[in-house]
């Protein structure tokens, strides 16, 4: 089974900082995704990638960018962190018909 690893479980950053959230898979899947999850709003898609150097905006891309230089790594970048980006961030990949998620990174921006 594929494994999706998010480098940090908890992060605390200051407003205005540039923040990198890392996600690594241990296989060769092409499609990878970044979601954020907030109470009452569910999971919302930020960005996704079909392959190396390919990316598409999801439903809420504002304030975020992504990088995929190698197939196994998909990074989410908060260009200038703001308090409204405090959330649980989840990386996922498409594994056949289902999606496999990482354990999530709980980011707090103070």
């Amino acid at each position: 089974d594929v494994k999706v690893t998010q480098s940090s479980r908890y992060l605390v950053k200051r407003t205005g900082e540039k923040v990198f959230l890392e996600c690594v898979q241990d296989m060769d899947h092409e499609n990878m995704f970044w979601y954020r999850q907030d109470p009452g709003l569910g999971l919302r898609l930020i960005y996704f990638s079909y392959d190396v150097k390919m990316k598409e905006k999801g439903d809420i891309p504002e304030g975020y960018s992504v990088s995929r230089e190698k197939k196994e790594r998909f990074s989410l970048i908060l260009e200038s962190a703001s308090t409204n980006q405090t959330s649980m961030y989840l990386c996922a990949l498409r594994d056949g018909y289902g999606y496999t998620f990482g354990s999530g990174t709980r980011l707090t921006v103070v």
Partner: protein
Amino acid sequence: SQKIEQNSEALNIQEGKTATLTCNYTNYSPAYLQWYRQDPGRGPVFLLLIRENEKEKRKERLKVTFDTTLKQSLFHITASQPADSATYLCALRGGDTDKLIFGTGTRLQVFP
């Protein structure tokens, strides 16, 4: 816009009973409907997928139905156990996209 509705109130049932969770959607014609389980502080875990041309799918104690006319899916857990306590998420995907759209989930609590 697309909307997925799951009962936001928690569902509390007694061990051994069948739990039934509902997922309704509007403004969408999904090719695939999926159910996930999420435990507190963890990422969702894929449980079952059902296609638009399928009425029912089973896996061990789990059963999913899909009614494209009613735009509704029902998720059943038979002989429920306290270990089944979690939040269950419904998700939809079109046939020409990899974008997966999630509902907000229903929290299930199974008590002894």
